[in-house]
């Protein structure tokens, strides 16, 4: 139910505060999505879409944190191994 799918904004066709919507591509499948809750998102941005409504703009820098965290854990392990 809380399934949110990331998609890329291709075009924005209405800029009204609560009617803001546009075309969003989900790996090639294009749907009309309400963008009223993500006023900061523009064409080219990725948004999380839930039941036809975008609920967040995905942040590129934070998106890499998962891998940075893993690398950091691996480095710590290597340090531990060196320390014996």
């Amino acid at each position, binding site marked *: *139910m*809380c*399934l*949110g799918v*990331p998609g*890329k904004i291709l075009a924005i066709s209405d800029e009204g505060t*609560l*009617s803001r919507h546009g075309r969003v591509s*989900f*790996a090639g499948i294009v749907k009309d999505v*309400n963008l*009223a*809750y*993500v*006023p900061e998102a523009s064409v080219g941005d*990725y948004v*999380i879409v*839930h*039941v*036809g*409504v975008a*609920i*967040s703009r*995905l*942040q*590129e820098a*934070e*998106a890499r*944190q*998962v*891998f940075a*965290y*893993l690398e950091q*854990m*691996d480095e710590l*392990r290597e340090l531990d191994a060196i320390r014996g």
Partner: protein
Amino acid sequence: MRFVDEYRDAASARAFARAIERVTTKPWVIMEICGGQTHAIVKFGIDTLLPPSLTLVHGPGCPVCVTPVELVDKALAIAAREGVIFCSFGDMLRVPGTRGNLFSVKSRGGTVQTVYSPLDALRLAREHPDHQVVFFAVGFETTAPATAMAVYHAHREGLSNFSMLVSHVLVPPAIEAILSSPQNRVQGFLAAGHVCTVMGYTEYEPIAARYRVPIVVTGFEPLDILQGVVMCVKQLEAGRAEVENQYARSVRRAGNERAMGMLRDVFRVVPRKWRGVGAIPESGLALRPPYDVYDAERRFAVEGVSAEEDPECLSGLVLRGAVRPHECAAFGLRCTPDHPLGAPMVSSEGACAAYFRYRRPTAAMEVTR
């Protein structure tokens, strides 16, 4: 698919599994709240990558599962009325009420339509001015902003043939209900990333402090869930009880303020009964004036519906993490997705349906053993 595939990388998943193994020195019980996470854990076999001392229990985060039978019965009563187009997410159609489900209403000639979005239901109302279009609004904080948007537009357009049966529920009161139960065995939580995308996580901070329990806001892909588990175990091992955010690419601490503003405008917080769990104070949403004229319970005066659960169904224990689906005697035998006794076997996010789909051979062996 960008923002999906990279979080399913097998080598990284194995590295995370090794990291979890390294940081775990004691047995711990962690609950993932959201049914979407349960589904991913069982589908990708994430639980099988964890050391045996770590137990993941599945939480109540399946809105379809916790919608009370009374409300399903009211939906059946409204959907059977002449001139009504009843709209629902597909998952709700097979949820058993006391007598039958929405499919059976449809087969008897009722107009029941599956919609992808509340905004699709609104479109149907515009296209069918001679019908009453009723939307069955189930869901957590994630879904409520879309529902609120539909009501807001209906009000602005003066649509008099649109209404909704509201069954929205809130996650933090359910976490508190689990933690304050004397039978609770959950020591740490993976909070639902999309719920927190909407509501943020400030409401979780007093819960973590009061019950001394770590809460990690977690995403839905395998690497997200594995990282959430590492972060939660590290807190447990160090004796910390904080709210941390694993899903920072989507979740800000204050949530989506515009969506939350809309929720406050359209809804008020009310007590709500959860199927299988019971009444939880301040755990649901209802329409507030002037939007309460769109309340289908009022419009169709469906009061005094008495409802009965199947006595054999253990869904209440499953939803509280006390029993796992395959431990139920009816699982896979008298209760299947085609003939469900309870809602968790119906919804794609229900724990019973996930076990039926991905774990049946082993689960059935355990049942017959």
